[in-house]
């Protein structure tokens, strides 16, 4: 662990410096929304923010992207893929979203890796800012063990102390960032680490929304046929918003567009909440009603993910609650499940 201190006054200076080496993505307020977007000037960003309305997964796995283009000539077939390899740095990603990326890393990794995802991911550094209080009325990261402070997966973690941040790193690339910008950092004061621990404990206490996740996970073994799924599903308006804003949902569909002798293959986000998602040729649908579709989402996150990847598929960001137009609150649902 390497740790130094960054004065709040010098954050802009640091970001300006980072912009020389990276395309910097940072929190920007725009008409009441909080976006994580590339900035041209460090002054555009805000460090007084909760979290972005949508998860930063689209920086690695965009809602729509071209996988490749092709063209057919006389006896030739050309296929062109141009993965993005920009050097990027996200300044101000939240701990829950770092955990979300770890989940996506596992999903897009493994035996077969996804080149588009990894060309972006491998070239992106993460500077995470720990939360001092819940981002929204909906988030519950203390229950999923993904916040309010990051434990792994980041390059640099910043924890707000009084008028400064404690900057820590666990990785070689993080150490390089701290070292090459050592001018803006200051050495650790004696009680800074203790101060951080105190603040993390204090921050944890501010999270009132809690879920007994272990109980939920255990309960999933016997709740598959429970009535709860029907009572929750009846509120669902099939918008797919929960899956689109979710930091861990990774389903996509591919489409081919061809005109004459050339074309392209596109990849768009898809959602298990859509009726067409599970429809087979001939019209048979593995998940014919919203009850099965909604249940699938919960089971994937709180049961199947644990078997498949050894991790929970939910990072407690609460965005699905904010996005739901059917007024479904995952915390309420989980607590109900935990009581059963």
């Amino acid at each position: 662990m390497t740790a130094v201190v960054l004065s709040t006054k010098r954050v802009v200076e640091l970001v300006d410096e980072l912009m020389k080496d990276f395309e910097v993505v940072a929190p920007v307020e725009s008409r009441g929304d909080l976006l994580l977007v590339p900035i041209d000037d460090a002054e555009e960003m805000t460090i007084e923010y909760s979290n972005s309305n949508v998860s930063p997964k689209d920086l690695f796995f965009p809602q729509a992207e071209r996988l490749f283009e092709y063209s057919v000539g006389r006896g030739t077939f050309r296929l062109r893929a141009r993965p993005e390899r920009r050097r990027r740095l996200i300044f101000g990603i939240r701990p829950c979203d770092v955990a979300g990326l770890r989940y996506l890393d596992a999903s897009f990794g493994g035996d077969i890796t996804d080149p588009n995802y990894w060309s972006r991911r491998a070239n992106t550094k993460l500077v995470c800012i720990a939360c001092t209080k819940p981002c929204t009325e909906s988030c519950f990261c203390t229950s999923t063990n993904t916040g309010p402070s990051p434990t792994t997966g980041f390059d640099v973690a910043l924890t707000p102390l009084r008028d400064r941040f404690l900057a820590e790193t666990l990785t070689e690339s993080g150490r390089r960032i701290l070292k090459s910008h050592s001018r803006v950092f200051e050495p650790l004061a004696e009680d800074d680490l203790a101060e951080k621990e105190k603040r993390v404990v204090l921050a944890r206490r501010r999270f009132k929304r809690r879920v007994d996740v272990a109980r939920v996970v255990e309960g999933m073994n016997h709740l598959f046929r429970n009535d709860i799924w029907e009572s929750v599903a009846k509120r669902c308006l099939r918008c797919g918003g929960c899956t689109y804003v979710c930091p861990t949902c990774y389903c996509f569909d591919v489409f081919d567009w061809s005109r004459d002798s050339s074309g392209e293959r596109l990849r768009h986000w898809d959602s298990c909440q859509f009726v067409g998602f599970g429809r087979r040729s001939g019209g048979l649908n593995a998940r014919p009603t919203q009850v099965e579709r909604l249940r699938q989402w919960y089971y994937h996150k709180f049961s199947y993910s644990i078997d498949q990847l050894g991790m929970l598929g939910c990072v407690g960001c609460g965005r699905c609650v904010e996005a739901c137009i059917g007024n479904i609150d995952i915390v309420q649902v989980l607590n109900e499940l935990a009581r059963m």
Partner: protein
Amino acid sequence: MTQGGLCVKGWNVHEFVHDPTRLTRPLIRGETGFFETDWRTAIGLAAKRLQEIVAKHGPDAVACLSSSKCTNEENYLMQKFARCAIGTNNVDSCARLCHSSTVVGLTRAFGESAMTNPIEEIEGAQVVFVIGSNTTEEHPLIARRVVAAVDKGAKLLLADPRTIELSRFATIYARLRLGTDVALLNGMMSVIITEGLYDRGFVETRTENFEALRKTVERYTPELSAEITGVPSAQIAEMARIFASSKRSMILYAMGITQHTTGVDNVLAIASLAMLTGNVGRRSSGISPLRGHQNVQGACDMGALPDLYPGYQRASDSEVRTKLEREWGARPPEKPGLTITEMFDAALEGRVRAMYIMGENPALTDPDSSRVEKALRSLEFLLVQDIFMNETGRLAHMVLPAACFAEKDGTFTNTERRVQRVRRAVPAPGAAKADWEIISLLSAGIGYPMRYTSPKEIMDEIARLTPSYAGISYERLEGFGLQWPCSSPDHPGTRVLHHRRFSRGRGLFSPVEYEPPAERTSPEFPFALTTGRLLPQFHTGTMTRKSPTLEREAPECQVEINPRDAASLNVRTGQFVRVASRRGSIKARALVTDAIGERTAFIPFHYAEAAANILTNPALDPNSKIPEYKVCAVKIERCE
């Protein structure tokens, strides 16, 4: 407004915006089909053709269709183009086809035809009465508010011929027969009056013509009402009591009320029910005619109507015309123009020779589409302006490529009268231009220059001429926009209409009698057919059917029929049936469901390959000229 939520269409809208089949260059019809051209050639030719037709047949031989999908600024320019550049009042839009009966009905009853209360007040209602609105599928973000109200303890009364999703939340769900809304509403009012549940104070101090209403509705006993509607009399009485029991009762309605030959009557009965119980002009009460496009309200506000100028100022008022003439430099015509449905009759009769259609697809949206297609084919010049080639564009002599909402600046006025900014987020594809730019070019081409450098300048002109928009400017629209009427730069906008006083003074009770639909079932055509929308699709699908995700959700037309009828037709879900009316027939798959009553069928109108409007009846409401999309008689046979 949306509380950060989007429906499935909003989440996937990028798919059609970036669709590779968007129109990118002006197209001119040649002998072998369309060929691409540049703007200068296209505008020059279109202007010449329009001028020739005006010179030969007069300005009334041209008709313009404005669009609820376009901005206020663009609708304003389209009506100005018709009135000043061409010299005709022949300008209308699809608002005619969805809420013209609201415009007539609520103007007569209240003096103003818009949603009376803001959307967010639905959540505070004690009673929500939804009639003729499949809110979940057509206005999901409003359905969300209804469910939130129920969560807070509100009672939901629901009247619909189909068991729609909201019925799961309803305290009472009344499945009424198609087109019997007046009988149901009169039945409810009869109970409210007979049992003395009406608001005497409100009726005496705020309304007029109560005695006439009493006389008419008293004859609609719950028993008679039950006989007509098919809803049990006890249910009718209970709905009446629940509705009248609260001072925060709201009524939500949509096309199920308006698209009837009795559309205006239906609206008048709704207005009477609200006034009778004192539920107008206060928080979480009133009437919510739910508008379907993002700018139906605005298209009407801007005067894209054949008899009304911006802000519903009457074309017959010479003072208004003088005011407009000063600003416009041309005297707008006095004689009312043609409505959308009349335009096609006029085309068939040779009175209309040219049409300029912006962002609409009447070849699919208008009733009895075979007749509409014939009318469009008979035109000497058909100019279509759209973001995609569609069924109407294919019949055109020229098609101009337009920018979509994400590619331009402007304002929309939503269903709660809220004027909001839309901002350019992405560039338009190819040479496509914003509709306001195209109209300006064409107008200059025929000798009436419009010199606007931005939509903001157009809004400033709108504010100068439109009393209800007088206080609106782009600077003031930052944030959440403003609700009209907004009469001066320091006016805060108006949340609730008819507070203390109706726009017309006293609210007017207009008693109405039940009239059956224009076309009744018969031994030959034994099914009553109704039409509507599905959640993932929008209108004729020109946009949503381009989105692979949305199209996959509802890829084909399905005819909903009741299991008993299915059994007697020997049809199962997924089998093809032929549905025929007196006007034409379509083939589609059956969807057997008890969500619909016996001898009734439902078809969504999104699908060109099984176009519901081949079947529908072009019979019009006499006052508003809205067609009866919601009832016609059909027969259904299994396809062998």
